[in-house]
């Protein structure tokens, strides 16, 4: 029995809680001298990355290796994609080698869904980020990291700050945080919000100074300069002045309020360098938990015999 992880919406609150519970066990595995279990021996996990990535690709590969699965990496720059091979042909070629899961990242939304329709029933597809759409494992590791410090997300107030429009992380996070009972406020200039927020269970603010003292978590998004094709901001300096978590703003945070960032950071733009090393800034903890969360997702999809969705 297998399934896919394409969107946080497929999981629901119960599914997210189940991933969190299994992640606890993998955090323990990761803390051992020998952080490896034989659970997925003989399984093959392929990472199919059409877009650059450091942490997500390495995190998935580390997770697969700690579960004793074999890993194959596909990177576009050294592949036959350069010779004009289509996505479908590439997927079929990889599948023919005998694989159990494919981790997909692509600059276009919906590619993981498409790949899931192409592959055989016994192959799981995991969305590792598709365009502006979703990045479900990032949202799961964010939930886990917050839960680790605050015990629960229920009734917590979380501000997601920055480039919401281009952010797949924001979409998955909104779905996951609200599913677990948190209240979410989006903070961004109007040009960096999606054209419509209809159906999003969120508040919107354009004033970070007003929001910062009220929240339990500040979630900063990266300014995605590579996705900005139009002039949405007068300048990055102006963005920092209004929406950056500067040392002055960080001082207004409640005691125990957390600061998260999915990385990679633009130090000095959305987050001040001094803020990155504050004790309640959990950016490296997010990365560490990312491996355990992805182990849980891979185990649930490939090993447990249970269905994720």
């Amino acid at each position, binding site marked *: 029995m297998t399934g896919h992880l394409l969107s946080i919406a497929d999981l629901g609150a119960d599914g997210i809680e189940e991933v969190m519970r299994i992640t606890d*066990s993998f955090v323990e*595995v990761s803390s051992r001298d020998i952080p490896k279990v034989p659970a997925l021996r003989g399984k093959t996990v392929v990472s199919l990355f059409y877009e650059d990535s450091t942490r997500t690709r390495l995190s998935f590969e580390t997770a697969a290796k700690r579960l004793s699965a074999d890993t194959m990496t596909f990177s576009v720059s050294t592949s036959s994609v350069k010779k004009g091979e289509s996505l479908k042909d590439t997927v079929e070629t990889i599948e023919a080698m005998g694989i159990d899961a494919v981790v997909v990242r692509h600059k276009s939304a919906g590619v993981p869904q498409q790949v899931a329709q192409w592959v055989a029933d016994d192959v799981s597809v995991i969305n590792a980020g598709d365009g502006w759409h979703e990045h479900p494992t990032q949202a799961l590791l964010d939930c886990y990291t917050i839960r680790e410090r605050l015990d629960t997300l229920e009734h917590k107030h979380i501000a997601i700050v920055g480039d919401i429009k281009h952010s797949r992380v924001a979409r998955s996070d909104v779905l996951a945080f609200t599913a677990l009972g948190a209240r979410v406020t989006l903070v961004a200039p109007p040009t960096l919000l999606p054209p419509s927020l209809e159906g999003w269970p969120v508040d919107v603010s354009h004033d970070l100074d007003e929001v910062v003292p009220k929240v339990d978590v500040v979630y900063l998004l990266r300014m995605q300069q590579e996705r900005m094709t139009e002039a949405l901001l007068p300048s990055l300096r102006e963005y920092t002045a209004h929406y950056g978590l500067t040392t002055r703003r960080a001082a207004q945070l409640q005691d125990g309020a957390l600061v998260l960032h999915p990385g990679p950071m633009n130090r000095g733009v959305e987050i001040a360098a001094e803020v990155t090393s504050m004790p309640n800034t959990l950016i490296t903890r997010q990365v560490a938990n990312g491996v355990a969360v992805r182990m849980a997702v891979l185990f649930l999809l490939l090993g447990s*015999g249970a269905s994720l969705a």
Partner: protein
Amino acid sequence: MAERERYLTPPLGGVFVPRAQVMTADDCRRAITRIAHEIVERNHGSANTVLIGLQTGGVPLAHELAETLQRIEGATDEDQIPVGSLDVAFYRDDIGLRPVLPEAVTDISFDLTGKTVVLVDDVLFTGRTIRAALNALNDYGRAKAVQLAVMVDRGHRELPIRPDYVGKNLPTRRDEMVDVSDEGVILGDMVAVK
């Protein structure tokens, strides 16, 4: 606990219908006292011994056994017998064949190298859980020796594994179910829910 998991999870899911009380709570307590004495006798004391309960049925038994050992050895607070708990889900050989999920987080906060490890479980059946546990223990250090204590040995072994300390040998049919709790040991059947 593997047995209970196997019966309680779909597609085999059902309800446990008790048929006979095999051991009372007092019987279990006496068995633990006897096993504690056997452990001390076999290992010439309990100085180098650690107990590891298998999740979830073996964990309360391991704690009870540790208390009993400390009492009969007259141990002070300084030389408490370390007790850990182990979940073997990631080491099972039936991963992918049936739903296998961890019940609880493994907690072994001490190095096993050079120790005599007594694995503790409630029911010994096919031996596959113990096989998985032996694999898992390797990841926590090289134990000097591993011994096995169970409350009930119900037979039907599928691997060359035998217990060192047994509360009760209980001949059973394969399709029966043995339930060990703080109310004692009960033999019964799993009945499918329509």
